[in-house]
C-alpha cells in the first residue's frame, strides 16, 4: 500500500511502539476456560434447545390432533353411510322423509337413530307416533 512519507513515518512510529505482551497467566486462564467449555456435558444451551424442540413438536402434534379431531367431528356420520345403514333403519328414514319431506336425509337418519336408541325427548314427537305405528318393535324397545 502506497502511503505519503508523513503517513509512512507515523505508521513506523506506531509499529515501533513497545508491544504489550499478554501476561503469562493468560494462557492458563484461556485454556482453562476452553477445558471447562469442552467438558460441559451437552451444554445448557443445547439442553434448553432440546426442551424447546420437544415443546414445539408437542404443540405441533397437539394442533394436528385437534385439527384432525375437529375435521372428523364435522364430517362424521357415525359410520352410518348409506351402505352401512341397516335395512330397518333405512326404512325408518324413508318413513320420516315421507312424513316430513322438507327434512334432510341426514337429519332423518339422526332422528331415526334417536328413536332407535330410545331417547325420549329429542326426536320430534310426530315421528314417535308415526314410527311406533309403522314399527311396533321400536315402540316396544322404548317401553
Amino acid at each position, binding site marked *: *500500500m502506497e502511503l505519503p512519507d508523513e503517513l509512512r513515518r507515523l505508521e513506523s512510529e506506531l509499529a515501533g511502539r513497545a508491544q504489550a505482551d499478554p501476561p503469562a497467566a493468560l494462557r492458563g486462564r*484461556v485454556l482453562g476456560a476452553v477445558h471447562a467449555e469442552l467438558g460441559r456435558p451437552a451444554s445448557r444451551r443445547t439442553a434448553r434447545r432440546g426442551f424447546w424442540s420437544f415443546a414445539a413438536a408437542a404443540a405441533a402434534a397437539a394442533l394436528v390432533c385437534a385439527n384432525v379431531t375437529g375435521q372428523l367431528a364435522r364430517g362424521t356420520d357415525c359410520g352410518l353411510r348409506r351402505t352401512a345403514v341397516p335395512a330397518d333403519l333405512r326404512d325408518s328414514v324413508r318413513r320420516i322423509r315421507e312424513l316430513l319431506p322438507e327434512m334432510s336425509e341426514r337429519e332423518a337418519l339422526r332422528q331415526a337413530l334417536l328413536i332407535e336408541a330410545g331417547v325420549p325427548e329429542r326426536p320430534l314427537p310426530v315421528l314417535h307416533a308415526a314410527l311406533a305405528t309403522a314399527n311396533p318393535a321400536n315402540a316396544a324397545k322404548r317401553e
Partner: protein
Amino acid sequence: MKPMTEPRPDPLLAGLAAGREAAYAELYERFGARLFRAALGILGSREEAEDAVQDTFTALVRARAGLSGVENLAGYLFAALRRAAADRSARRRAERRAVREVPESPSVKPEAVRNLRLELALAALPEEQREVLALKLDAELTFEEIAAALGVSPNTAASRYRYALEKLRGSLQECRHGTA
C-alpha cells in the same frame, strides 16, 4: 494478477472442530499474543483485553461444529475477537467507565511522553478506526485478513486504514499546536 485466497485445508481447524484441547493450545501459541495486542488496541485496557481473548476462545469452542468450513482462520478469529471486544465495550459503556485507561507507569522520558501522546491520540479515534489500526499494527494482519475480520473488501480495509492514519496525524498535529 491478484493472488487467489487459497482454501488450504488446515489440520488445526480439524482439531479445533473436533474439540481437541491441544489444538486450542496451538491456536493460543499462534495467535494469543496478537489477539491480546489487538484487543488492547481496541479496548485500551489490559484487564479487558485479557477478558476479550478468553471470550474469543470460549466462543470458538461453542461454535466449533462449524469451524471445519472456515477458510481464513485469522480473519475468523479476529472477527470473533472483534465481537468479544464490542461486547466488552458495550458493557463498559453501560457501566459508564472511562473510555480508555492511561498506559501503565508512564515515565518522564521524552520517548514515553511521545508514546503517551500517541496513545491518547489513538484513544480519541473513533472505534472503527482504532480497530483497523490495532488489527494492522498490533495484530500484524494483512489487509485480506483484516477484510475477513471486518466483513469488508480488502480495498475498503486498506482505505479505512489510511483514513485512520490521516485522522491520527491530524489529531497529533492539533495536539502539538495546542501544547506549543
